[in-house]
């Protein structure tokens, strides 16, 4: 690679000693040095040394430039600093105080950043992953870390407000309302009768029944106690409800905050279509790549990307040249394939519905068969989530979309499949608990829910979610041990054509992220019924981090097609938000519509869970009640709504103004270029005339 600057007669090496970032077009126009034999192709070189006068002005006018941001060698930066220190700027004492404050604030921020990086979880591992496998894979692990922290903080929340008060006030306190319901509805005895076989404990651990059912893990164990002391009162049901609601709001705020940074970047880049090639060539090299192998892989990656993009461009040109007949055929094919994939997804849903139904009907079985029946919904969901995307991939080959569109379509299908299959499971559960919403059916008339099969339905729902979470973790470990490690051993040690064709495992980021989103959605759905689920999920995700890291380093090769890291983070969070909204719908419905179990739980004697809020509301003081009524009334909300409209209009106007100035500046840049060309031509013209004059003058002499 030629790196020595070579000097031709007419060229001079560019002088970079003034680090002004943007050289300023006035500088280049004023200080251009033209060599004598410049042709139309060779453009003159600029000298970036500004005149001394300019520099003084800058030093006086604005705050002293951040020295670190000047692209000069260290010795010159020192010189600049000395000059800055010698110049005593004429500023007021208030100005100098402000400057001192900002300087100390900067120092404080730097120190704080140093401290925080010490506490960041797994930063070294993430750096290593990013260096060896690129930004796409690293974004998966960053997302996983975000979920771990989110789950842990939520657990602390729940523990602080629900778990610990429950433990402390278990024996103290009296129930809010006395029993008024029919006797049959209040029968609930989860403790196992008689002799329990030893392996049943293990089965109970996996399915949340038996000794685990009547414990702090599930909703049924909590009581509706209120503790009233002289100046301290704690209403456990109210705390339970508010903690659940706040937990959802807290997760939403965290996700939106994280989306904010990613969204800003997405808006700035304005989609990846424009400037694609320059972007790849100028920005795609990862300087953190370590080692020959990683470098060669990255080079192959970039080569592949460039080839694919160039090919896609020629495909697009060809597609634009399709005849009408061919276009109709292609679109008809795409529509029919869309229907086929939709049909596959519907078939998967039906399978899940049947499985859940079957599982609930046969939930009394004992032993291993009973365990299989218990886990049947999870098994069917996992099988569906594995098979259907594979089939959809094959369908995508027929559809012949552009490669980037194919990835997005596949992801959307997979997201739809995953989240709605969970929805189908929940729907099936609901139809069984509430007899499909009709309280006039024989089973549900007495207590408004099916008390025969579900004496404590909330615990049952919690158990389902618990089983889903555990099963997800188990499947991941099993796939790791039984599929990925053997695959690698086979590929490495058996050099046949088949082994080479199969190749080493590739770490597919989108599929793994969907797994995370699915797991988190299950936890959100179940958090109301199984308060310790966030803790279990934290442990599960921590284990998953280490397992995935091990499989990444031992079994996987870097993906040939990269997944863009920043737009992908935004996409992950959007998908997470879909999961969150599904869980919120479930929570709102459970809070307001379904009658809580009369035999267990803190909301035993209320018509629905939400009704504790109005009841406690009237215990507040008069003034608070009036204030809260005022906030909810029209006199407050309508002016608030009008104000938010005004603020939104302001921001929209601001955004359009910025867009216009960007377009204006681009046009200006073009004009400057044309000015430059015009002046260069003029200079050439003049120098040629000067040359001719000299020649003729010489000839005369």
């Amino acid at each position, binding site marked *: *690679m030629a*790196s020595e*600057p*070579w000097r031709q007669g007419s*060229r001079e090496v*560019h002088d970079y000693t003034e680090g002004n*970032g*943007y*050289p300023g077009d006035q500088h280049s126009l004023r200080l251009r040095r033209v060599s004598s034999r410049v042709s139309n192709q060779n*453009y003159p*070189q*600029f000298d970036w040394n500004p005149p001394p006068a300019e520099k003084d002005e800058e030093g006086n006018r604005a705050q002293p430039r951040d*020295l*670190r*941001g000047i*692209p000069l*060698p*260290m010795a010159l930066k*020192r010189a600049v*600093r000395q000059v800055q220190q010698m110049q005593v700027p004429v500023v007021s004492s208030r100005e100098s105080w402000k400057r001192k404050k900002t300087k100390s604030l900067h120092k404080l921020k730097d120190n704080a*950043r*140093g401290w925080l990086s010490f506490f960041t979880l797994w930063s070294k591992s993430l*750096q290593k992953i990013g260096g060896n496998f690129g*930004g796409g894979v690293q974004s998966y692990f960053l997302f996983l870390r975000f979920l771990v922290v989110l789950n842990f903080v939520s657990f602390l929340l729940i523990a602080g407000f629900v778990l610990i008060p429950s433990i402390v006030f278990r024996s103290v306190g009296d129930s809010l309302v006395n029993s008024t319901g029919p006797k049959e509805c209040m029968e609930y005895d989860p403790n196992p009768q008689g002799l329990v076989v030893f392996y049943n404990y293990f089965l109970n651990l996996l399915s949340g029944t038996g000794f685990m059912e009547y414990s702090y893990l599930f909703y049924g164990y909590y009581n509706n106690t209120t503790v009233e002391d002289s100046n301290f009162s704690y209403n456990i049901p109210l705390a339970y409800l508010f903690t659940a609601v706040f937990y959802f709001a807290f997760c939403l705020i965290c996700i939106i905050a994280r989306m904010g940074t990613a969204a800003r*970047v997405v808006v*700035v*880049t304005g989609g990846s279509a424009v*400037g*694609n*090639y*320059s*972007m790849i*060539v*100028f*920005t*795609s090299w*990862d*300087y*953190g*790549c*370590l*080692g*020959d192998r990683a*470098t060669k892989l990255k*080079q*192959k990656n*970039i*080569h592949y990307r*460039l*080839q694919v993009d*160039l090919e896609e*461009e020629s495909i697009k040109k060809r597609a634009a040249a399709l005849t009408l007949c061919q276009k109709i055929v292609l679109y008809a094919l795409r529509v029919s394939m869309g229907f086929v994939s939709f049909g596959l997804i519907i078939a998967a849903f039906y399978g899940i519905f049947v499985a859940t139904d079957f599982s609930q009907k046969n939930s009394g079985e004992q032993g291993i068969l009973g365990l299989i029946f218990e886990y049947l919904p999870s098994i069917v969901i996992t099988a569906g989530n594995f098979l259907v995307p594979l089939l959809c991939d094959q369908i995508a080959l027929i559809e012949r979309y552009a490669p980037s569109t194919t990835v997005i379509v596949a992801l959307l299908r997979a997201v739809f499949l995953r989240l709605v299959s969970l929805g189908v499971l929940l729907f099936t559960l609901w139809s069984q608990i509430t007899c499909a919403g009709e309280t006039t059916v024989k089973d549900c008339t007495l207590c408004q829910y099916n008390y025969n099969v579900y004496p404590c339905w909330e615990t049952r729902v919690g158990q389902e979610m618990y089983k889903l979470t555990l099963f997800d973790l188990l499947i991941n470990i099993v796939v790791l041990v039984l599929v990925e490690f053997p695959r690698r051993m086979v590929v490495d040690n058996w050099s046949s054509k088949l082994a080479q064709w199969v190749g080493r495992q590739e770490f597919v980021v989108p599929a793994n992220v969907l797994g995370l989103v699915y797991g988190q959605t299950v936890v959100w759905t179940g958090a109301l019924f199984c308060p310790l689920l966030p803790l279990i999920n934290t442990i599960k995700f921590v284990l998953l981090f280490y397992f995935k890291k091990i499989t990444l380093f031992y079994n996987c090769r870097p993906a040939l097609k990269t997944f863009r*890291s*920043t737009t992908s983070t935004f996409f992950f969070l959007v998908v997470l938000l879909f999961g969150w909204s599904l869980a919120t719908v479930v929570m709102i419905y459970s809070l307001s519509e379904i009658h809580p179990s009369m035999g267990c739980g803190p909301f035993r004697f209320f018509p629905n869970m939400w009704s504790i809020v109005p009841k406690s509301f009237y215990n507040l003081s008069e003034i608070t009640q009036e204030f809260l009524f005022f906030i909810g009334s029209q006199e407050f909300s309508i002016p608030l709504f009008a104000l938010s409209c005004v603020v939104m209009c302001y921001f929209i106007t601001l955004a359009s103004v910025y867009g216009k100035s960007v377009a204006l500046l681009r046009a200006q840049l*073009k004009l*400057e*270029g*044309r000015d*430059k*060309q015009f002046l260069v031509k003029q200079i050439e013209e003049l120098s040629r005339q000067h040359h001719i004059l000299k020649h003729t003058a010489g000839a005369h002499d």
Partner: protein
Amino acid sequence: MGTTASQLGKDLLSEYQELTFLTKQEILLAHKRFTELLTKDEKDLPNTRVPAERILTLPELKSNPFRKRICHVFSTSEQKDGSLTFEDFLDLLSAFSDSATLEIKSHYAFRIFDFDDDGTLDCGDLEKLVNCLTGETDETRLTTEEMRQLINNILEESDIDKDGTVNLSEFQHVISRSPDFVSSFKIVL
């Protein structure tokens, strides 16, 4: 004013902290790694200049396809041979550090890509750049047709004033639209 033996004075350390984007730990680590490159006699001299071959044995730079250009750009030697003093080395790490600004990174990236050091990226520079990115072996190079198409596309997208080259402002305009640049233009010891 240079570095002596194996100790960095406190004032020197705080000066470096002020003039670069590196934290105290990073500067000390850089000092440690730099002194490992010195021979026994060189360790006693202040301000030693380490030739490029030895700098390029660092694992962070060893396989980087732009390693020679990086040494050349950050070198302050008169012979332009790519040798670095400790302060040049700190400048290098500062530009490639976590907290460096987009402006300084894009400035140095431009200089690294400017293979003929003439202040603009013309077709020759772009061709050498693409060859570095895809690898120098015959099977990883793009064909001449593909290269021509690629360079035309690049100039069409980023050459705003249509002079056939990409200058610093146009380069920075492209870079500012890329969200991954700051995180990938990073070398951490």
